């Protein structure tokens, strides 16, 4: 059985693994249709397919220039492995998502974004080049100057252009492994958006929203804003070894939670506690990068909280001009529907790349989790229509269920992507359950 992070859908086939180009080439030739897969951290069916070419044994570091921060790795190296190597040397990931358990190949295929999107843009901004094995087994070097169209189509291309082999990243220099975090308690959506815009010069910002609060408190929540701490900002006892973090144990969720564990009441209680736990309206602390960027990584297998039936993650972005009306509308519908969303994360994006399938674009993005329950698919179709109405788009990496019409309303470059794909892979050798479902 194979499924991705949302545990829905699941299929009976299992991935094959390769550790060299020649092994990959043989596996690729043997399968009429295949899709690359990394750690399986996309949520839905993006990396599920007839055959899955798993990169996790193709995971060697190839070059690390500690002077200028250029890092070259094979595509199966995870961001967690990179952090272990680069942080002690004084470098950091230029863009990181909310989990470090994704591979380099997956980060490129999803053109991932992080808490600094409004300042630094998406992962693509820091990928200087990569090698790609295309459908016919040929290996092409892609960069902004060489095979540039294929380069941009692959960034956010969901693995449909080929298998990324090796890639080079430009890392970000850091003085310490710590973040100076500011936490703001915000009473409603309008205040939330004002605060995020006021904080637009801060490198990292993200907001957690209690999406069960109604009326005047609709959109209340917490904003986390952070900057890499300088050495002087650290407490004296940490200044001697500013780049090393103390080892920490992890919590595991060893079992699937039963269905009744998570309902509107328990989520409401959790959210109230979470919001209530923060007393001060505005507080600052020095914390290590782990809890700032990867709070949920401390709980292994947290996806099991939703039970065996799994959950759907729903992430969309709305343009700036419709964000306020759109978010109010959508949050109101969620609170009225009572579909318990454990996590709701709001983030202000900067301009996107406007290339092919890359998700981020200017405006507000909201990400929500919904456990799979009766009626949830229908409800999300209602939300799809609202997102489309406000000119938004839905993130493919999180998707397991949207319809073709929704996709085409959100992504303007679908036809250029299809044209390019027809040139390099006319038989759709690379195909996922998602690309079949969406006619990508």
């Amino acid at each position, binding site marked *: 059985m194979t499924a991705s992070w949302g545990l829905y859908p699941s299929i009976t086939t299992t991935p094959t693994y390769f550790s060299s180009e020649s092994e990959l080439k043989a596996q690729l030739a043997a399968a009429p249709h295949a899709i690359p897969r990394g750690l399986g951290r996309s949520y839905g069916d993006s990396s599920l397919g007839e055959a899955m070419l798993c990169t996790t044994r193709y995971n060697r570091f*190839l070059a690390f220039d500690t002077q200028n921060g250029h890092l070259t790795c*094979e595509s199966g190296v995870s961001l967690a492995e990179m952090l272990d190597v680069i942080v002690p040397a004084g470098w950091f990931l230029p863009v990181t998502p909310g989990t470090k358990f994704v591979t380099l190949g997956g980060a490129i295929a999803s053109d991932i974004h992080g808490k600094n999107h409004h300042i630094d843009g998406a992962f693509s901004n820091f990928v200087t080049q990569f090698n790609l094995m295309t459908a016919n087994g040929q290996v092409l070097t892609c960069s902004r100057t060489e095979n540039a169209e294929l380069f941009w189509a692959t960034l956010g291309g969901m693995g449909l252009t080929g298998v990324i082999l090796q890639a080079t990243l430009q890392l970000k220099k850091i003085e310490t492994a710590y973040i100076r975090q500011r936490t703001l308690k915000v009473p409603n959506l309008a205040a939330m958006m004002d605060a995020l815009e006021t904080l637009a010069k801060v490198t990292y910002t993200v907001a957690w929203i209690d999406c069960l609060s109604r009326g005047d408190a609709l959109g209340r929540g917490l904003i986390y804003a952070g900057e890499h701490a300088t050495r002087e900002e650290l407490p004296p006892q940490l200044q001697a070894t500013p780049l090393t973090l103390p080892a920490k144990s992890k919590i595991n969720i060893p079992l699937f939670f039963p269905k009744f564990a998570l309902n509107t009441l328990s989520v409401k209680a959790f959210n109230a506690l979470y919001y209530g736990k923060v007393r001060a309206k505005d507080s600052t602390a020095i914390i290590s990068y782990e809890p700032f960027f990867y709070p949920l990584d401390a709980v292994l297998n947290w996806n099991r909280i939703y039970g065996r039936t799994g959950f759907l993650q729903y992430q969309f972005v709305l343009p700036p001009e419709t964000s306020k009306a759109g978010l109010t509308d959508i949050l109101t519908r969620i609170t009225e529907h009572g579909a318990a969303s454990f996590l709701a994360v709001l983030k202000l994006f900067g301009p996107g790349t406007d290339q092919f399938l890359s998700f981020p674009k200017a405006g507000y993005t909201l990400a929500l989790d919904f456990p799979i329950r009766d009626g949830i698919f229908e409800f999300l179709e209602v939300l799809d229509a609202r997102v489309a109405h406000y000119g938004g788009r839905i993130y493919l990496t999180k998707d397991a269920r949207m319809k073709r019409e929704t996709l085409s309303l959100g992504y303007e470059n679908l036809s250029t992507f299809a044209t390019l794909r027809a040139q390099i892979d006319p038989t759709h050798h690379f195909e996922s359950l998602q690309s079949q479902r969406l006619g990508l």
Partner: protein
Amino acid sequence: MNTQKTLYLAGATSDMALAIGREFAGQGWNLILGGRDPQALEPIRTDLEIRHNIQAKTVLCDVAQPEKTIAALEAIHPAPQGMVCAIGYLGDQKKAEHHWEEAAIILHTNFNGCVALLNAFANQLELNRNGFIIGISSVAGDRGRQSNYIYGAAKAGFTAYLSGLRSRLAKKNVHVMTVKPGFVYTRMTEAMKLPAIVTATPEQVAKDVFAAYQKGKDVIYTRWFWRWIMLIIRSIPEKLFKKLSL
């Protein structure tokens, strides 16, 4: 980090050798990676250097070319203090029963090739009166079983070789350790259905090997329970054993 310490990994493309190499690299050891195709070892070399902040080199190590392999070993300066010999080829027992060529490759890879390399390295260490050898043999060498006795016979020979070598070098401050792994999930065993409860990962084996090396053990089974499994298997009377389908 002690930059003086260097370990030679013979058969460096094997999953077990690599895992053992990572254990040593984690303790600051520099590595020499010996394999048939040094160019193919390049990503492994860079990976070990970058992850562990050590120096790693590649070198030709090919049982089909013992003279070249020994010359390459002797050309390494400064000479490595230790060697992990993880050269191995499981082969196809059925094929080997009917085609001498397959049997010859199994015997040559698992025995002759290792002996050629270790003879040369042992002489170096004996001269220096310092160093160690870790030979990866197998539980398959403890008793010939119908399912893999040609491989088992080569490993039995290798176990005997290591035992004699240990005795010779013990007087010269050189330690020889015999490692007998049971089932391990590696590329060698990828096609086999292994019982999960007694099958180890290469990382578990590597931890056992490193711990045993630090304690100066002579012979280890890994995982530990294989000592007891093999004790039982060895004590089955031949009259009965020949009727079993092990």
